């Protein structure tokens, strides 16, 4: 009797509003039971999973039995969703990028032979002398000499800017020459850039011919001088003619020119050595990258 009374009293403890809320919660719980059941079966009972990757010899679905004791190890299934395992072979009909933007190398055996000569000269002559020179002459001075060399070549740049109707480039190249030759102590310093922000506008006869539509022709490699195309090689003769140093046909001036060119190489010696060590076929790399850079310069 007592217990019945208690039950009756207990049921009277809830208001009708609370009873409704409880009923709603119960309904929600019942509705979500299938979801919980799925989760529980996933995590604690058993499930079908791809175990580790990509081995078609393995069963695709592996049934794992879980022991109730403390787990010793945790396996995280790796499911590869990408369908990338279709075996395929090279497409021999597809167009090649090198046919579109690469350079023709019709005299490759000659070029490679010249490159070997250059490599020999670099290893046994240029590199040791450069290292000695770099040890004695500070980089500050070497960079100054390099700027002087650049400054002297102003006529070539200004003239070719004019030939390509790049008026701004021609004007700035000439102004740079005036400022750097005077305030910059014959080009040893570059106040034109430092003070006035005047950038370089590099143009040569090879670029002029390219903008006029002259085809590049084959790639040519010349020891100590480097990479050219037939067009650029021929044009470089005109570039040399525009160099004021060559107007004075006396040996000491030639000596100065050679010294300045050598000085320029010494500034790049580390990069050249780094490239020689890094690539298997340095010739191909040098040819392709030089031509990429050359066409980019022409397009500027």
């Amino acid at each position: 009797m007592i217990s019945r009374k208690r039950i009756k009293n207990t049921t009277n403890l809830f208001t009708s509003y609370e009873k409704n809320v409880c009923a709603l919660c119960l309904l929600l719980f019942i509705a979500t039971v299938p979801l919980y059941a799925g989760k529980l079966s996933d995590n604690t009972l058993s499930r079908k999973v791809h175990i580790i990757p990509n081995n078609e010899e393995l069963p695709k679905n592996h049934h794992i039995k879980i022991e109730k004791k403390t787990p010793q190890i945790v396996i995280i299934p790796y499911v590869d969703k990408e369908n990338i395992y279709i075996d395929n072979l090279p497409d021999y009909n597809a167009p090649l990028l090198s046919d579109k933007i690469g350079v023709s190398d019709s005299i490759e055996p000659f070029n490679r032979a010249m490159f070997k000569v250059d490599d020999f000269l670099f290893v046994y002559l240029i590199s040791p002398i450069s290292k000695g020179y770099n040890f004695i002459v500070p980089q500050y001075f070497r960079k100054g000499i390099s700027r002087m060399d650049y400054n002297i070549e102003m006529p070539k740049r200004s003239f070719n800017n004019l030939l390509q109707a790049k008026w701004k480039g021609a004007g700035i190249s000439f102004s740079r020459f005036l400022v750097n030759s005077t305030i910059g102590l014959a080009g040893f310093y570059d106040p034109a850039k430092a003070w006035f922000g005047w950038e370089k506008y590099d143009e040569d006869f090879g670029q002029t011919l390219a903008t006029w539509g002259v085809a590049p022709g084959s790639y040519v490699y010349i020891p100590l001088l480097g990479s050219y195309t037939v067009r650029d090689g021929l044009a470089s003769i005109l570039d040399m003619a525009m160099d004021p140093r060559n107007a004075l046909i006396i040996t000491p001036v030639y000596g100065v020119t050679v010294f300045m060119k050598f000085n320029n190489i010494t500034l790049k010696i580390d990069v050249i050595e780094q490239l020689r060590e890094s690539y298997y076929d340095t010739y191909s790399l040098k040819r392709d990258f030089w031509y990429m850079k050359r066409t980019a310069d022409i397009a500027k």
Partner: protein
Amino acid sequence: MINFKLKIFSLFLFTNILFGAATVKLDGYLSQGPYIDTLRYVSLKVKDWNFFKDGKIRSVKVIKNDDDNKLIYKLWLQDKPAPLIIIIPGLGGNYAGIAPTALAEIFFNKGSSALIISNPFSWDFLLSASSRITPGYTPVDALDAYNALDIVIKDAENKYGTNIFPRKILLGYSLGALDTLFIADIDSKEKKINFDRFVALSPPVNLLYGLNQLDHFYNIWRKWPLEKIEQTKNKAVYLIENPTPIGTNALPITSDEAKFAIGYTFRNILEETIKAIHSRKFFGILNIPFKSSSRQELEKEIERISYKNYVNTFLRASYSDLFGRNFSIKKLSGNASLPAIQITLLTNQKIRIIHTTDDFLLTNYDREWLEQVMGDRLLFLNHGGHLGYFNNPTAQKYIIKAIKGAKFKNISSSKNKNIIPVSNIIDSEKQIIDDFNRTVKNVDVTR
């Protein structure tokens, strides 16, 4: 019973929040998406060129019967005994690369000695230290690298003193990171070197997926007109000549152009590698023979070979004696990817991984999987794509922390919804390990 389940649930939740992989925001990093960000990798330069020149270049004989080709490594030694950080660069990277040298410079300036060896997927490693000449199958590449490292470390210790390296840390990035993690697996079994730490920066999880991505990127040019190809090439040249200093300036390039630049760079590496393989061994795949005087036609034939083609031709030919002629690429890729060494990744507390949340070499599932396996030994950087974070000071700070063994806790939570606890290693896992061990046993360093 209900209380017990609640406790278990709370424990999982607590564990996830406490030990989940961390995500760190890169300070001062102007992100332009993962592809353009990746190009910022080239902005990591050696600060002092004298450092580049000061490295001691040494060579060791790794292949028993080959006296002509020795493996070259580069070493920077502190004046007194100091931890040695060994760097394995990414795909195609060699000991003279700018980026690994720049990393070595950072570590050296922090007081460590540094050593760089070439990646197994580079022309000089494959000619001087690869047991099979054809790189790309990670278990064997890693074993080759492990054997080479053993010889290299002994050589350095013989030359400069046995106690000069109180600690040895192996750090790799990209494919070098994948190799590093496989080496961690080998080192835990063979215990020849006993590395103190393994740091992997941006490893691919599924190798073939990563290589496939590179193929896709390269092939973008096929949809472009010639002007667009020229324009992209010119932009790439400009970026190489004018790399942004610390990734704070926007790069003048679109995502598609960046993808192409990435694909083109990696395709060049593959071409170099195939050329080196072809110079040494004829697999019957290329029609044009290797000549020292003229290679342009050969280069055109090689240009047709994608990474996927390479795996399907050169690797298949090279490994058919191990796996039989009819083994599939899927099997090869499975054994060469991170899930094959997941038990080592789960249990080896010496391993640290740093990745980005937007690396295109990973799928979302890869990221989730990595997070679940590595927990607080994994750090995600919020930007950088693939390796585009190297020059960021925040990233560098965390790389140093990883080297020191820090764990990355409590910044974000992972969801271990796919974790299945089991009491024993399951059969298929055993099969993978057996497969790997069989591969390793069959590798002979005598070519």
